[in-house]
């Protein structure tokens, strides 16, 4: 009699634990997906802003056709990219093309005084920031989720139910690559 009860209690305990671990993994994976959709929204927003930017700049920058075309091309490539890794590379290229563009803009005071352009520039700067903050948040979530997948005993449950590790999103923005190693002391 006692043995049966002990077995039942242990079995119930195992089931409760399994459910808790499974739900925890699902929650964690959903957090990763939510974080990804935030990046996605911002990247799309950036793609939407670019035609407008190129159109506004075209009239002022007759001699910079190459710079402008490069932005358009980079945008097209980023829109086609499939996996997280490809997307990261394509968006990096777009970021650096934009970085070069904003450097060149310094030579065109008329363009810099254009209200429409200023508004676009603020939107792009902000979108760039949002992408980088959203990426930070996404990578944090991925890190947490992957750590969870790999640690014992969660990894046994994860293996059984087919949870797969998620990819980090790496994007190199122009600003970041050139960021000076500042030491405030």
């Amino acid at each position, binding site marked *: 009699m006692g043995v049966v009860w002990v077995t039942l209690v242990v079995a119930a305990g195992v089931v409760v634990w399994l459910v808790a671990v499974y739900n925890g993994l699902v929650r964690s994976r959903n957090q990763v997906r939510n974080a990804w959709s935030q990046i996605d929204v911002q990247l799309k927003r950036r793609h939407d802003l670019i035609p407008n930017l190129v159109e506004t700049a075209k009239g002022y920058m007759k001699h910079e056709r190459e710079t402008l075309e490069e932005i358009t091309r980079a945008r097209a490539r980023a829109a086609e990219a499939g996996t997280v890794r490809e997307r990261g590379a394509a968006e990096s290229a777009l970021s650096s093309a934009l970085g070069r563009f904003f450097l060149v803009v310094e030579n065109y005071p008329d363009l810099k005084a254009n209200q429409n352009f200023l508004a676009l520039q*603020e939107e792009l700067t*902000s979108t760039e920031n949002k992408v980088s*903050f959203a990426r*930070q*948040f996404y990578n944090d979530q991925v*890190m947490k989720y992957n750590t969870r997948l790999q640690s014992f005993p969660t990894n046994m449950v994860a293996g059984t139910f087919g949870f797969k590790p998620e990819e980090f999103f790496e994007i190199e923005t122009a600003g970041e690559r050139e*960021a000076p190693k*500042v030491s405030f*002391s």
Partner: protein
Amino acid sequence: MWELIQSNRRKSVLLLVMLATVLVGLGYFAGYFWNPRGGQLFGVLVALAIWAFMMLSAFGGGERILLATAGAREVKPEDAPQLYNILEEMKIASGISALPRLFIVDSAEPNAFAVGLKPDRSAVAVTTGLLARLNRDELQGVIGHEVAHINNRDTLFMTLAGVTVGAVVILADLFLRGLWFSSGRRRRSRDEGQLALIMLIVAIVLAILAPLLAQLIYFACSRKREYMADACSAQYTRYPEGLASALEKIASAPLRTREVNRVLAPMYIVNPLASRGRRVVGLFSTHPPVEERIRILRSMGGDTSLAGYEEAYRRLRKEPLVAAAMLQGVQPMEPRAPTTQAADERRQWRAARDLLHRVDGYRTIECGCGMRIKVPAGFSGRLNCPRCGRESAVG
């Protein structure tokens, strides 16, 4: 970040329990003194009733009351695109569930505060003076600090603690006044005399000390939270220099407003009531000295994460800010490059005032000479152009 909220929550609950104990204890002794037989329960009930009433009003729209007290007006996204962009950036970086509402306060003094019991019912308010003086990076640092207060549930805690401290003050006041007026009329049976005398002394001492004690607990906690919010802001923006130079500008601005509400004062990013340039932190200051906050932010070096702030904090204050367990697994974060945009005060003053006018529903009338005249919402009739003197009809 979640671990931080959890640890904060445990500490906050402990603190609120302490404050509540002070409140209930005061009620108990006051009740005993009022009537030694059964009065204790009555006293506790009165204490709880005052507390519950204040709590209900805080939850039923406390943030609206606070915002109204500060004279804050809500800003729409189309009125201040850049400000909204910055707020949204900080929302993303912090991972809070909803975008706080944005308010503007008409005050020349640069300052900002956050209110709200939970992230999806929160608000951030900035003054026109702040918008006029700071550049984009500095503004981001300040907004990051305010969003951190919301994310760390400081705004919730400050409201709960503030309400409890308020209840203690009211109860102590009631009791001491009641004592004054009723001292001649009280009857006391002889055998209880000595005990009653002891209880009376305890009650009076408690009534005098309780408000002080409650405020001490409240303030000590508030200072730690300011450092924490600075640390989070540095982490969100990945650019501590932004907040540091913003604090510098805020602290060096001429002190003009004296009409700041005392209840609101602890909520601002820099205490508007504290005298400037004072270095000692009193037991009763809600904010750490600004110079120290700036020094910590500037000595963070190449790591903008919580661990980087903690290291700078320890170096300067010789004590830990957060438990070591919370820093486990924190990745070092390199600072980002600053946005190359200097503050243009004249242009920004005009933009800030324009924003205020738009929020207040002013209409712009174009005179024939090209002069743009802003007219308050309710005005109708005729007015003369201040430049060319032409008359135009409004309304």
